[in-house]
């Protein structure tokens, strides 16, 4: 932690960056911090409660953050994938951000939880993580902790969904999506949702009804999830932001699995690796063309 605080203070004092995006202790657990004064760098913390993906604040539509100046951002391996995504999709230049990567031993499900990592408390997305030591960084800090305990709840749920008949699966999702109020919090919190105008808000033509009716909710989530195929970094800011507690992480994992099977692609923190849907490859399967 001291290493991180000293590095942040130095970057700010040297004028290498104008703001450090990190984590601090808040009234309800750990939360994002925006340090602009080197004297405040002591506020920075890093531990298993740091669930948030701070790369989402680099999204260029966040004008109030852009105005702070050049940022340094504290990332875990999963978050580094979002930076790579933003660079890959030409939203930010790699040189426009200083990446401070932390070697990660897994995170909790909630930032306000103060528990030891266990198979119940660890975030399900940490299971089988291959990015605990990020490769995309300007600085990398900490020792590599041991593998986190495996929370299999999401894998089990997906296995259960895959076993269902289409009608059963539809009724599962209809129950979940009937709660969606179309606030689009999932989109606003997402690091990879940076469209200037979202299709959900196009009125001419109106692709998706704006009202939270079941058929429109289905259309909205289908569109959002398909647009995330091969782009989603599985940080689950969407699921954390959802005020209706819809298990959006299931979509994220399912679609990532489909992309991996189909294109052999896994979200990674190398911006030079093209996204599967952003590149033409003669290797792509085309058995659906008859």
């Amino acid at each position, binding site marked *: 932690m001291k290493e991180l605080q000293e590095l942040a203070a130095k970057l700010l004092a040297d004028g290498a960056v104008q703001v450090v995006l990190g984590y601090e202790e808040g*009234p*309800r657990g750990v939360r994002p911090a925006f340090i602009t004064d080197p004297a405040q760098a002591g506020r920075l913390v890093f531990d298993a409660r740091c669930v948030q993906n701070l790369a989402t604040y680099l999204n260029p539509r966040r*004008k*109030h953050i852009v105005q702070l100046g050049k940022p340094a951002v504290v990332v875990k391996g999963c978050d580094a994938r979002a930076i790579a995504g933003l660079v890959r999709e030409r939203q930010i230049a790699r040189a426009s951000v200083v990446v401070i990567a932390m070697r990660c031993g897994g995170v909790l499900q909630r930032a306000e939880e103060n528990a030891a990592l266990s198979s119940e408390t660890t975030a399900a997305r940490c299971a089988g993580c291959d990015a605990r030591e990020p490769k995309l960084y300007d600085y990398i800090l900490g020792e590599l902790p041991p593998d986190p305990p495996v929370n299999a709840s999401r894998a089990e749920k997906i296995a259960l969904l895959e076993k269902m008949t289409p009608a059963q699966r539809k009724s599962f999702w209809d129950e979940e999506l009937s709660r969606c109020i*179309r*606030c689009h919090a999932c989109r*606003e919190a997402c690091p990879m949702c940076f469209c200037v105008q979202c299709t959900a808000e196009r009125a001419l033509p109106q692709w998706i009804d*704006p*009202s939270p009716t079941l058929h429109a909710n289905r259309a909205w989530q289908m569109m959002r999830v398909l647009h995330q195929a091969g782009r989603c970094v599985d940080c689950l800011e969407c699921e954390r932001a959802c*005020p209706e507690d819809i298990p959006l992480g299931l979509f994220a994992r399912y679609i990532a699995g489909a992309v991996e099977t189909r294109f052999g692609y896994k979200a990674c923190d190398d911006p030079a690796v093209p996204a599967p849907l952003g590149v033409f490859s003669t290797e792509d399967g085309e058995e659906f063309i008859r």
Partner: protein
Amino acid sequence: MTQRFLSHADLAALVAAHKRVIAPVRAKDDARQTDYLPIQALADAALGAALPRRSLKEYFLPPTEVLLSYRQTKEGVEIKEVPTQAQPQVILFASPCDAAALEVVDKVMDWQYRDELWFGRREATTIVGLLCSSMDSSCFCSAIGLGPDSPRGSDVLLTQVEGGYLAQVITPKGEALLAHCAATEASAAAVAQAETARKQAREKVENNAPAIPNEFGAWLEENFDHPAWKTMALRCHGCGACASVCPTCHCFDIVDEHDSSEEGVRRRNWDSCQTAKFTLQASGYNPRQSQSERFRQRIQHKFSIYPKRFGEILCTGCGRCCRVCAGGMNLPEILGGLIALAKKDQGESGQ
């Protein structure tokens, strides 16, 4: 205010006697949480470690509702309005912050025009509040001038005592609800027990945040351009989850949706000033360019604009906005910071 004793059996009979009763129910996806949902029997109700995740708002202003349907004919446009009369319902174990919120929102719903759908549901509903015992560090109802034992908005307010509940009848509607109920006069012991419980509940929340001073609204208005706004909402995602779970946020958007080229419906849907689209104009210009300005609007509306117009703070201190925020924004903390700035200004101008 009359006080009566209701045994668990009395309350169970009351639930059984009503067709539609809404109460906190254990959440399916998280055993620690509760949601306000319809119940069949008293045993279905559950009180959780925290407030129900979402407020009572959706039972009066649903996330989406049809206002009218229309059909284009050769003769012109046929319009069919929806009935404004609602089914009678009882809300049981309402949290005092949620019950009070309905009265606060009544003001705007009866301003310039009377919202018939809102008041149709308000009139058809009897609210049985319960002394709150599920407060956490984000609750700040007492800072708003309410409290875990506030009777505001409830028709009957219950306090758990040995063997049942002490019921304070607050309105004629509450009187009517208990008229067919085997409630007996409360014993002195039950009254004393309830009083102790209320005092303890108040003490639990009173230290969470300082009371909001009367002059705060005027200070906010004068300090619309204060530099503090610029950096206050950095961690805010602008996702509007706070507005969805807020018992007092009531903004809505009206849209027409076509079923075919000839017919369709006009709906109103929840909306939030925290999203960029809220103020986006047809020209493409947006008067609230960044999240700093949108967050300022949230604070100004709740603590300055609404109080100035209606004499009420548009917040009941339920703390849901803090619990749901993925970015870790914290309203009592932010209010504390602004109140400190206001006090500093006052100190300086007094010298």
